[in-house]
Each structure stands twice: as structure tokens, then as C-alpha cells.
């Protein structure tokens, strides 16, 4: 293995950690019965997740539908109360903050959603949508100043300030996503959870928004948790990547290291499944299709949750749950067979 290729942008300093997720679990109860509701089990949406995000870093969170990416993001945003574990922001445990401190903290952590159609109030003008957080948080109570700031934000995300008077339905998907981004920026956050922020957009518009997210990151020294299922975009935008499977992180590494040297059998299968837009590459690439489907998170398999679909599985994998091991510097893998 040669030295890691140099990236076109610098990776943030390893020591300066902005956000830590420690032993995070989010188990949703599953009920049965209409009148006397009885808990019959739990969806283990997130089941023991640890990672750090450095200041200025973009951490990619990937994995297939239902593996717990959004739930992890919602726990960070304090939209869910975790069943176990903690979220540390600037070293402070978010669960232990009092109301005022929490309010202040909320403005520093923002989110950009996948669906620009449903996340914007259709009856509000674009200007009011972007200005609302400043009003609610009282950071810009003066209407005139707030309007000026809204126009500034529109300009920042590449929209004509005249859009302030329009309604979301009068805009294209890409334009609406820019509005969502402007709104997220309105409180000058340090940290943004981007949950499938470009997935709903057309290919020709995706690249525009990817570039915008990148420019804003550089301009405002933002830190992103970038949740996405498009691995090509993740490789382009992220410094490090965590791969989730059934509520657990199974691999975590620097971006190029993960894509050039995937170690966990699930990561390998996932990367192999992504078709590359180049017929020559595709013609010379082995296609090993992973068998079966993702099992239910209500009754996850014993031991390593990936073992029923794994080609490397041995008897031991059914029994013990593998923890993350650092197999190369900064490259963590939860598998005993690699």
C-alpha cells in the first residue's frame, strides 16, 4: 500500500475535537395492543455508537436505509433523548445543560434536511423562513436588521435577494435547498448535521449544492456530520467516514483510506455495489453481489450483526460482538476476521 494520496484540502487537526458521541444507544419501544399498550420489544436504531468530530472536519456517516444514521443525527440535535450514552459538544455533556444553556447550544448546532419540499413552511415567504430562527432565538429582534441579514444570507447561498418575497413552491428543488441552507446558517452555527442534504436533487443541481456546502465550510469554518447514501459524494466531501450497519459503526477511517483500503466485509460489499460512471472501469471490475437483505433491527442477529450475510463469518461471529479495533493508524474496524 502506497502512501495516502494527498487531498486537495487539508484535514483538520486531530487534537481539536468539537463533538463526541459516546456509547450512544437509541432503542425505540415497539408496542402491541390498542387499549392496553404493551411493549413487546425494541427497535435498536442506534446500538452503541462512538465517534469524534474534529473542529472544521466533515465526517461522513454512511450505510443503508434503516441503519440508524438519521437517529444518530437526531440524538446529536437533541431531538431524541438517547436510551444510553452521551453527546459532548466542546467538552460539555448536552444532556446536563440547563434550559438557557441548551437554548444557546441549539443555535450552534443546526440541520439541513433531505427534503426541501416538506421542510419549508409553504405559507411563509422565503425571507420569513430564513429570518424565523433569528426571531425565535432573539438574536436579531429588529425587523429591518433581520431583513438585511436575510438578504445577506440569500446572497451567501447564491440566490438573488429578491427571492426573499417569494414562496417555496415558486422555486426549484435546488433553490429550495439553498433556502434551507440559508436558514441553517442564520444563527451562525459551528456545527451542521447534513442529513441527505443533496439526495433529493437532480444530478445536474447536486454538484452546485456540494460546492456551496464546501465553500461555506471554508468561509465559516463549519464542522459537518454529512449523512448520505451516495458514496461518491461522501468521498468527494468528507475528511473521514464512518460506516454503519444495523445501529453500529462497523468501520471508521480517513476518507481515502476507507475507499482505497476497505477492510470490513460489509464496507467492501457496499463499495463494490456502487457502479462507477465509466464503462471501462466497470467492464474490468469484479461484481460480487452481497446476498440477502438487512435483517430487522427489532431482532438483530446474535454476535456480529452482519454474520448472516458475511462471506468471512466463522462460528465465533454468531457468539461475540466484535468491537472496533485500530488495525492501521486511524483505521478502525469491527471484525475479528480481517
Amino acid at each position, binding site marked *: 500500500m502506497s502512501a495516502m*494520496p494527498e*487531498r*486537495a*484540502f487539508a484535514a483538520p487537526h486531530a487534537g481539536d475535537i468539537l463533538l463526541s458521541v459516546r456509547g450512544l444507544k437509541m432503542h425505540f419501544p415497539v408496542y402491541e395492543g390498542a387499549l392496553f399498550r404493551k411493549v413487546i420489544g425494541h427497535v435498536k436504531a442506534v446500538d452503541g455508537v462512538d465517534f469524534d468530530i474534529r473542529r472544521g472536519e466533515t465526517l461522513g456517516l454512511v450505510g*443503508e*436505509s434503516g441503519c440508524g444514521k438519521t437517529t444518530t443525527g437526531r440524538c446529536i440535535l437533541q431531538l431524541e433523548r438517547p436510551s444510553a450514552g452521551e453527546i459532548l459538544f466542546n467538552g460539555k455533556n448536552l444532556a446536563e445543560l440547563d434550559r438557557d444553556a441548551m437554548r444557546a447550544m441549539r443555535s450552534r448546532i443546526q440541520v439541513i434536511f433531505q427534503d426541501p419540499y416538506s421542510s419549508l413552511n409553504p405559507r411563509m415567504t422565503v425571507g420569513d423562513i430564513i429570518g424565523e430562527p433569528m426571531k425565535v432565538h432573539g438574536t436579531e429582534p429588529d425587523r429591518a436588521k433581520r431583513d438585511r441579514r436575510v438578504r445577506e444570507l440569500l446572497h451567501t447561498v447564491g440566490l438573488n435577494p429578491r427571492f426573499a418575497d417569494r414562496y417555496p413552491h415558486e422555486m*426549484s428543488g*435546488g*433553490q429550495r435547498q439553498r433556502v434551507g441552507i440559508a436558514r441553517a446558517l442564520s444563527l451562525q452555527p459551528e456545527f451542521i448535521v447534513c442529513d441527505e442534504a443533496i439526495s433529493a436533487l*437532480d*444530478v*445536474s*443541481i*447536486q*454538484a*452546485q449544492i*456540494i*460546492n456551496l456546502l*464546501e465553500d461555506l465550510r471554508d468561509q465559516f469554518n463549519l464542522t459537518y456530520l454529512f449523512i448520505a*447514501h451516495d*458514496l*461518491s*459524494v461522501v*468521498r*468527494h466531501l468528507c475528511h473521514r467516514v464512518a460506516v454503519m450497519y444495523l445501529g453500529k459503526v462497523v468501520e471508521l477511517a480517513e*476518507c*481515502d483510506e476507507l*475507499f*482505497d483500503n476497505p477492510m470490513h466485509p460489509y464496507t467492501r*460489499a*457496499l*463499495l*463494490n*455495489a*456502487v*457502479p*462507477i*460512471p*465509466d*464503462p*471501462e*472501469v*466497470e467492464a474490468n471490475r469484479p*461484481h460480487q*453481489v*452481497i*446476498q440477502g*437483505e*438487512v435483517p430487522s433491527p427489532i431482532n438483530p442477529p446474535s454476535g456480529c450483526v452482519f454474520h448472516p450475510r458475511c462471506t468471512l463469518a466463522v462460528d465465533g461471529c454468531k457468539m461475540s460482538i466484535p468491537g472496533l479495533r485500530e488495525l492501521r493508524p486511524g483505521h478502525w474496524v469491527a471484525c475479528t476476521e480481517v
Partner: protein
Amino acid sequence: MATLLEVENLQTQFLTSAGIVKAVDGISYDVEEGETVAIVGESGCGKSVGALSIMRLIPWPPGRIIGGAVHFQGKDLVKLSDAEMRHVRGRQIGMVFQEPMTSLNPVLTIGLQLTETMRHHLGVTQEDADKRAVDLLGMVGISDPARRLKQYPHHLSGGMRQRVMIALALSCEPKLIIADEPTTALDVTIQAQILELMKGLTRRLGVALIVITHNLGVVARYADRVNVMYAGKIIERGRAHDIYHRPSHPYTLALLKSVPRMDQPRKAKLDPVQGQPPDLTRLDAGCAFRPRCAYRAERCEREFPSLDTVAPGHVAACFETARVTRLEKVAS
């Protein structure tokens, strides 16, 4: 190889309050027996309407095929009666849609949907149809097929429903399958399973495939030939290799350059297609791509370029193709 399907100057329009939407504006292409042909292009460019027009599934009002022909096995599908067309659908041309829930009947078991189709089109007995249904589900990789036949669509996962759709599309041994975004709603490992399955089966059974997708990776992996659409027209066509390595239309070029690649380290910032997709109610006589085009010339304002040959089996609709290919050579 013999030509199986030939679409000739097909035009489909929708009457809306905003005006006439020229969703498909005179497209022509063909499909050879056993071949996989891809249709790509951004959202709203007319890919689905083009496919639905072949199947004569355009709802009137507001939509209508206003011109052109679809030659298939010696007939012009545009001219067939509704009854004749029903025989073509399902029997001779199968369809697989993005969202199988909209095309599977939620209140009928999987088994009934499969056997009904076969009894109707093939005139086989219930017993034979049952046997074939079990075989078909096995063929598309569904385990325990006998039990699955008694289940309803909502009992199945998205990937499994898509397998059922493929079984249904194959059930009457069609010569052609039209798959509209067959894997867009699925996870990537399931997408790979479904696409490998479709590739394997179409090759083995000699079925031709029209695959509609916006995923340039899927096209690169599976298509023999590619049609690139923009604003209701085909603007470039060629063998997949030529389209990817020698794009001759500025839109194709811009599209290919705008997507990041998972197999290569990041090199620089992305180079997006500038501007917004066009409004199909406001097209004029000029080239629809010109507001976003880096190679725009004066002539593009007035005239729409025809699809002209740039190399054997490779056509593009641009006055500036020579400039596009030359500059690309210099750049790479």
C-alpha cells in the same frame, strides 16, 4: 442483430394551465434484439413520458401522443386499438417501474397477480400457471416461493417487491422490457442484486431492455447503447464507451464532469452544470441547452441542431461538436 423496436419522431404533449408541455419532442431511437439501451437525462426531461408513450399509457387528459410512430414486430403501436395494445402490454413488452407498490395490486396475492397475467396472455391452465409462478419466483431469487405466492405485496420488502415485478414482467416471455428507474428507491446493495439479476436474465433469455435512469454509474455498468435526453429531445446517442469517453454534446460532457467518482481520490472542486433545467412550456426554435452551454454560438439562438453523425454509431445534436471534442482532447 435485427431491430426489435424503432421509435420514430415520437411527440407527446400535455395541456396544462401553464401552457403546452412538450414533454417528448420528436425522439427517434431503436433497440436491437437482446440489447440493453439506456435513456439518461435530468429530472423532467421526458424519459418516463417517452417510455409510457411506447406503452400507450399516457393519460388523456392532459396528455397526448401527437405524432410519430413506434414500430414493433411489424406493427405501429401508436395506431393499434386499445384492445390490441392490451395484448402487447405484458405479453410482448414487460414493464418494471420505480415504485412497485403502484404497479402491484395491493389487495391481490403475489400468486394471483402472476397467474392471472399468464392465464390471460398465454391461455395456460391454473395448474400450469401455478407451477410457472413458482419457477419464476425462484428465478428472480425469492426463497421459499410457494409460501411467497400466498402473500400480499405489503408483506414484502422493497427489494423483494421489485423482484416480483421482474418476475411479472418476464412471466409471458416478452421480447422487450422497459424498466423505469427500476432501482432508484432501493439501497445500493439491493440495487446491485436487482441489476445483476436483470442483466443475467435478459442475457440468458435474450430479452432486450430499455433502462431509464439518472444514475450514470448504472448506465456505465449495464448499457450497450445510451440515449441522452435534454428538454424532450435526444441530444446524443452512441455506444456507452463512446458516450463516456468521447462525449460530443456539451450537455453530456457537463453532466459527466459534474459527478464525483468513488473510485478516485478527490482532485478538485466539482464542475457543475450551470443554471437551471429549462421550462418545457417555453421552448423556442433555438437549442434548449444554450442558456447553460459553455459552447453557445450565435446560430444556437435561432436553430435547433439536428442529430448528426460524429463517428460511426455516434450522433450528437450540436453545431459545435467539433469544438467540444477538440477542447476535450486538449484538456485530458
